[in-house]
């Protein structure tokens, strides 16, 4: 294993130390592992808190700032944060209008956020929890822990963050977050496995000419193995898989995220974006807004995920609203 770390045990603390040094505009509580906006809102506003295992950067810390999250709670690498972190975060950013917890649907995340919500409620903080579960690779049935939360987290955090910034009420913010999640689907393909620092070797071995199809962001193997094929074929397969599960029809508009999993060059992500755009165009679907880059990564994994969020005027307007975080900024 080759990593730019001091030790697997200290990687999170060391990264937070660097993050704090790099971004003085954020309040980084290193011992408690909470990244929050340094400036409190002038009037009470709904606070958005998210969190999850580390190794997915810039998610979530990179999305803390005006127009998006109020706080993020990073767990150990690929391990959900503990309830105390979310409680500390809620206490730090709650301004009287309640807290929305944005939780990617993984057993560990769900349970830790649930315990956190109970603690926050005990402290008199009103809490809504929004689950993100956009990954169509997982059949959503009684046979699984339910669909995973992946790329749609960016859309949920951005759009709900914009609405919260405008002073919307707790239930409204939670509702739009849920609506974005319901309108989103993702699917991912990996070319290599991720190496968790504490494990010291890749999560799976993959021959030179094979890929894992339907992977998550935690280095676990996907639904199946296939031969590596040209980008246009892979992009088409990913688009078609998502469309098969999505109520998108000709004439619809989407927000599209072509997301690098950490080890794939931007050059390749643009190749994929071109193919995705072409495939969608064939189906009469227009990409109204897009992001191309590393947003929800899986350490050093090579590959990409595609997220499509069905857009309407309201969602696009909230998407376009100003945002100023370390990983997403526009005005």
């Amino acid at each position: 294993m080759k990593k730019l770390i001091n030790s697997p045990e200290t990687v999170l603390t060391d990264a937070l130390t660097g993050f704090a040094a790099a971004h003085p505009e954020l309040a980084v509580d290193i011992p408690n592992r909470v990244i929050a906006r340094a400036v409190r809102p002038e009037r009470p506003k709904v606070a958005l808190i998210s969190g999850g295992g580390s190794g997915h950067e810039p998610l979530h810390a990179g999305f803390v700032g005006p127009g998006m999250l109020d706080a993020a709670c990073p767990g150990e690498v690929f391990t959900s944060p503990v309830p105390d972190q979310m409680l500390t975060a809620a206490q730090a950013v709650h301004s009287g209008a309640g807290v929305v917890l944005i939780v990617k649907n993984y057993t560990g995340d769900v349970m830790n956020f649930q315990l956190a919500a109970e603690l926050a409620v005990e402290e008199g903080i009103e809490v809504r929890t929004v689950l993100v579960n956009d990954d169509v690779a997982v059949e959503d049935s009684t046979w699984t822990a339910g669909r995973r939360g992946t790329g749609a987290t960016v859309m949920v955090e951005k759009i709900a963050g914009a609405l919260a910034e405008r002073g919307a009420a707790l239930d409204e913010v939670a509702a739009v977050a849920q609506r974005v999640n319901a309108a989103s689907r993702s699917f991912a393909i990996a070319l290599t496995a991720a190496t968790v620092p504490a494990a010291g070797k890749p999560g799976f071995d993959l021959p030179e000419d094979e890929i894992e199809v339907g992977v998550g962001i935690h280095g676990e193997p996907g639904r199946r193995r296939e031969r590596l094929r040209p980008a246009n074929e892979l992009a088409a397969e990913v688009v078609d898989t998502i469309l098969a599960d999505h109520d998108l029809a000709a004439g619809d508009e989407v927000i599209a995220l072509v997301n690098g999993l950490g080890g794939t060059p931007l050059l390749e992500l643009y190749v994929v974006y071109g193919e995705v755009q072409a495939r969608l165009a064939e189906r009469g679907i227009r990409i109204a807004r897009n992001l191309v880059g590393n947003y929800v990564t899986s350490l050093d994994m090579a590959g990409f995920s595609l997220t499509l969020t069905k857009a309407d005027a309201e969602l696009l307007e909230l998407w376009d609203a100003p945002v100023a975080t370390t990983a997403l900024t526009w005005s």
Partner: protein
Amino acid sequence: MDTELALAWVREIAAAVERQEAQLTELDSAIGDSDHGSNLRRGFNAVMTALDSPEPTAVGAVLAKTGATLISKVGGASGPLYGSAFRAMGKALPEEKATTAALATALAEGLLAIQQLGGAAPGDKTIVDAWAPALAAFEQAVSQGLSAAAEAAAEAADQGARDTVPLQARKGRASYLGPRSIGHQDPGATSTALIFRALAQSARTA
């Protein structure tokens, strides 16, 4: 079980987790995300520190503190599950010492906490698949005393963990793999077996 034995049990778990960290992580890398060993090591290291100062003076306090520490330090799926289980066991043992029958009740409360939080049933390829048979064996052997009951539970937990191999996971991260989860032993069931083995170990040497 007295305070000392409770402490010995938790220390023995911590030692076993330390020894088996790599194996647990290896199992988790096959059908999960390669962190079960490091999660538990981090958790039980923290438990060791927490139990030092001040040292609890009752069985229930030892287990409750263990549970609370696991919840605050582990994260992931196993943190809240084991944490809630130990917290529930602690709560179920209000006396300074616990009879073997009381411990059986506590272990049942532990399982209940795991199932209430995680919603897993036997056969879902989780912690439950080791804890449930261990509990049943413990209950059946209660009359033979702690050492024998714990030994029976450890055996059953081991068997339960091994029996997860052919199962397809229906809960937790491994469920994402669908049929590809078949053929691998569940990491959580394996660590549960280790917890019951530690109980047998400390009961024997007590």
